């Protein structure tokens, strides 16, 4: 079987698995966020944190809860790393430096999981499992809570109430992420991933010499790393490491974990707004982009010409032989179109176009299907923009799901749209203009430029994957990327919640034959076009100077 056919079969298997999970998971999540019941363990948590889970919150209260919780999380994670040297169970690793500790704390709370450290050489069991893995759950649950709040904004009318942040946070964690993670971890262990609390071993190498490896709760952390679209690897090699991702089967399963919640959330959305077709339109939009990107990636990676590449069956530099071109391409597209950022191959080694596809995927705002929660609210913002641009063309003031898109709504959506380009382009420009940051580049020319552009694209969009090649553990990069991650995560959330609040207050406009139908393929196509054109226009010059200049040269 040729690698191309193997790739297509893997893709088909993946689509089948996602399709099977779509309905039950989507409906289950809608039920979780709509249920009136509190389970006993949840009640214990509410009592412990002093929350009243049934009290409805307006958007400022919801936002306050979210920001306070995240601020505490950053502080806790920062202190845990700073005190690591004094904590037991740390494998003897010393405390983390302030700038790196800030970067890592910001990174994990912002669901980015950018890592400027080497997991196996810096973080012990306590920080990994008690700090980083916990945030893998909570930051994902925060994203889902925001998405659900926005969906409620569309679904509710003449109230400003968006639900209860604490209830959404706890339920997302306890009822969705935890059970799925347990199942996922068992599957990964069965595939051969590591799960222990072993200390540091010295192991022999095939080529002679020895190296040191430590164990850890790898399989469990790996599961939530993918499921919560986090991406922070236990080891530096991330999902390319055989302890994290041992086989082609585990590889496909991990890609499934990355995509399953974001895709199923479109069903949850349809369910909660009372029109499954609306959910299908969003699903269709994201699926078209995802499939298009996957096809392009496979094409450019397989087609890479030259005798060396042909012997390897495509561009194999930086890719694992376990996964091949297809398994790596599938993973790379899934991880950059969601906010995951886990890698099973090195994006820096991809073809010029391939690297460009990973960057463009993130620059779209990670909405196809996007991070858990963040993907859904991201694409709903784009849906609002698309409705506004094209909705006028049917001769009515634009409305989406019966809610009018007026001055306030478009102001908030436009602010959302401005945040990440400002962070990505602004920081990249400053980094290039200053004398020292450029020293972190491994390559010169277009590829070197891509290294820095990729870093800020990844940080501001909360992806967390790295292009490799850039030495990011400097004060400059630790600090600016930390800021980019925090602003890139929480500023958009402010605008999303404000938008949700303004939508929830509105009274819905009944649908007539004159209403723009947002549950039709025509609209989905329009949405794809809007997303590609708006993002494309923003980043075209930057992409031209990096991946395009490289890709067109070959």
């Amino acid at each position: 079987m040729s690698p191309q056919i193997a790739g297509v079969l893997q893709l088909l298997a993946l689509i089948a698995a996602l399709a099977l999970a779509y309905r039950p998971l989507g409906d289950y999540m809608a039920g979780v966020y709509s249920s009136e019941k509190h389970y006993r363990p949840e009640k214990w948590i509410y009592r412990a944190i002093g929350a009243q889970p049934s009290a409805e919150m307006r958007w400022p209260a919801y936002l306050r809860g979210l920001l306070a919780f995240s601020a505490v999380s950053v502080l806790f994670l920062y202190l845990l790393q700073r005190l690591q040297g004094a904590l037991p169970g740390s494998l003897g690793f010393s405390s983390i430096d302030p700038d790196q500790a800030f970067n890592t704390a910001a990174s994990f709370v912002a669901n980015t999981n950018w890592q400027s450290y080497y997991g196996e050489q810096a973080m012990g069991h306590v920080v990994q499992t008690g700090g980083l893995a916990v945030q893998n759950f909570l930051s994902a649950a925060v994203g889902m809570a925001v998405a659900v709040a926005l969906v409620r904004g569309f679904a509710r009318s003449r109230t400003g109430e968006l639900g209860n942040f604490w209830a959404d946070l706890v339920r997302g964690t306890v009822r969705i992420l935890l059970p799925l993670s347990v199942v996922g971890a068992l599957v990964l262990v069965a595939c051969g991933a590591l799960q222990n609390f072993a200390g540091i071993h010295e192991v022999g190498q095939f080529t002679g010499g020895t190296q040191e490896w430590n164990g850890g709760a790898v399989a469990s952390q790996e599961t939530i790393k993918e499921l919560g679209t986090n991406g922070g690897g236990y080891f530096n090699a991330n999902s390319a490491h055989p302890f994290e991702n041992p086989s082609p089967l585990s590889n496909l399963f991990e890609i499934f974990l990355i995509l399953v919640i974001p895709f199923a959330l479109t069903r949850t959305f349809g369910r909660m707004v009372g029109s499954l077709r609306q959910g299908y339109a969003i699903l269709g939009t994201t699926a078209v982009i995802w499939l298009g990107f996957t096809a392009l990636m496979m094409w450019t990676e397989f087609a890479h010409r030259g005798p060396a590449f042909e012997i390897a069956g495509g561009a194999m530099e930086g890719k694992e032989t376990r996964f091949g071109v297809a398994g790596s391409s599938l993973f790379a597209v899934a991880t950059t179109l969601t906010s995951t950022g886990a890698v099973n191959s090195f994006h820096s080694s991809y073809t010029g176009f391939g690297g460009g596809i990973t960057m463009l995927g993130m620059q779209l705002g990670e909405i196809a299907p996007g991070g858990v929660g963040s993907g859904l609210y991201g694409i709903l913002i784009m849906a609002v923009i698309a409705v506004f641009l094209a909705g006028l063309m049917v001769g009515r003031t634009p409305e989406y799901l019966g809610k009018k898109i007026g001055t306030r709504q478009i102001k908030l959506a436009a602010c959302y749209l401005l945040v990440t380009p400002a962070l990505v382009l602004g920081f990249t420009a400053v980094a290039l203009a200053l004398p020292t940051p450029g020293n972190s580049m491994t390559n010169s020319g277009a590829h070197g430029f891509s290294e820095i552009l990729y870093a800020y694209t990844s940080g501001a969009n909360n992806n967390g994957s790295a292009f490799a090649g850039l030495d990011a553990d400097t004060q400059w990069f630790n600090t600016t990327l930390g800021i980019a991650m925090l602003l890139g995560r929480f500023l958009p959330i402010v605008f999303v919640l404000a938008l949700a609040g303004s939508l929830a207050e509105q009274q819905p406009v009944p649908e007539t034959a004159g209403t723009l139908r947002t549950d039709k393929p025509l609209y989905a196509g329009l949405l794809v076009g809007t997303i590609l054109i708006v993002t494309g226009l923003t980043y075209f010059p930057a992409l031209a100077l990096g991946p395009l200049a490289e890709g067109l040269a070959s």
Partner: protein
Amino acid sequence: MSTATPARAPHDDLPPPGGRGAPTRAGSGLFDPKQLLKSFPDALRKLDPRVMITSPVMFVVLVGSVVTTALALADPADWFGWAITGWLWLTTVFANLAEAVAEGRGKAQADTLRTARTGAVARRITGTKEERVAGTELRVGDLVVCEAGDIVPGDGDVVDGVASVDESAITGESAPVIRESGGDRSAVTGGTKVLSDRVVVKITTKPGETFIDRMISLVEGAARQKTPNEIALNILLASLTIVFLLAVVTLKPFAIYAGADDQTSLIVLTALLVCLIPTTIGALLSAIGIAGMDRLVQRNVLAMSGRAVEAAGDVSTLLLDKTGTITLGNRQAAAFLAVEGVPEEALADAAQLSSLADETPEGRSVVVLAKERYGLRERDRGELAGAEWVAFTAQTRMSGVDLGGRRIRKGAAGSVLAWVAERGGSVAADARALTDRISGAGGTPLLVAVEDAEGARVLGVVHLKDVVKEGMRERFDELRRMGIRTVMITGDNPLTAKAIAEEAGVDDFLAEATPEDKMALIKREQAGGKLVAMTGDGTNDAPALAQADVGVAMNTGTSAAKEAGNMVDLDSNPTKLIEIVEIGKQLLITRGALTTFSLANDVAKYFAIIPAMFAVAYPSLDRLNIMGLASPESAILSAVIFNALIIVALVPLALRGVRYRPAGADRMLRRNLGLYGVGGLLAPFAGIKLIDLLLTLLPGIG
């Protein structure tokens, strides 16, 4: 409620047969290229930065023009800098030109109105004396006298007398109208001329705020405020401008790193920025708004706010008065139904004779029907010697004639039955069945009876029915396709209302409607999130007009009604509501189409400018030059020139509005996306290439 009876012939306001493309359709409007030249000085005057700042997109272009001018002055030998500078200034001026042309059309109309306003002298009554004061000195509550030949000095209501008034200064309609105290026809407008008789007018509006003053400021665009949707669009355009500003500003460090410092001079970057920001829609946005109002003015509708025009596009429920809007003003005879044993011709003859003395339209229609259906010549009242005519009155509700021994009566069922009974006559058994059948079908039965040698008896029944105007059903079908529900408002009983509603094809009806019912209906619709439009002219319509999202007051109506509505139809034609909705929609579509077009244009501009800037640093990027433009300079210049010229090219479209046909949202979206989205994507590739080809013909380029 009141029933507006149009002052002109009933068929005037009918949609033309076929409807499509006829002048009453939204979409027509004149554009004369000469207006571009005429408005040029106005366009230059608008270069004032304090004016330009209201459009963020064009303000950025203005700043860009100033920057490039300074740079060109610093290096006067560089022809490229001068060329870019020139075209950037032209871009700015073209944008102002669009607005100036749009405003210019209203100015002419305003001047005509001003001549009507000036020089009115009022004859104010104080106590018993009469004094002459300037119209501007009048206060609300003053009483003024107007006699034949006088210009009415201000808006007011007639409190005494009746007069014929020439309102052509405002409506353009030369036929005089009657204004009388009391009732729904008491309002007079300042600037109109009294042609006969004498009236006393109570002034209701302060000088400077009269209808004609408001009209002047409206058609001039002085009172124009940005509408909610326009503001929202402006915000989106401003944020896109910021995005592109970011993309261009950060490009400089990228270019320095890439080794393309020389190719990305400030002039080139400014050119790129101006090409990318949505200048096309930014330049035309306010012209589109002004032109939308202007299209209404051309149809003799005055919108008191742009908000109302926008709301018209969103209307999902139309309340239409039955009389005068859906049906012709009056009921007409449709059939003669004779009782058993009476030939139909005899009934028709009796009905015609008895109706000769009935001057009401219903009476006339009986005469006409008898003539058309049975060839009975209309007899002149004079040719029947010895005839004694009994005229129709509201009290007797009967008309008739006494011809010697033969007395014929025709009238309302109750009255005629009483008349027959009084004379000891008989009522045929099937007469009641016939009247019931007619009532059941929503018609009005008129009985015809005769008393002669054989005694008094009922001959038969005349079927009177409302005649639905031609073409209304098609219009309502169109509205339904546009997602608009029509509700017919009538004072008739539910049975009659239902029959007419079915015949006309409206979606719903409100029978035996009182002003309270109407108000309740509007509130109910609005509670469901719907926007409601209605017309009205009576004082009792005023609350409902104020409550409706689009309230169109008839110019013949009372000042209370005109004050309450947010639009005034100078032709007093209730059917125009449908056109108003279409104009509102067309306004929004034009905005959306040009925004989409403007954004889609950017793709081609990138393909022109990016290779021009970076092909030296990265030769591979020359492959992006898919248009094969001659040189970096010609490529950038072509993009800038295209960007400027497309504004002028689209001015007629902005003023006229995109072509609009009533259709469902899906069809409309598909059509407009194809035309302005895909068209906007492809057109500039051709345009820029063409300009580049022309540029290479110039010496020194290419």
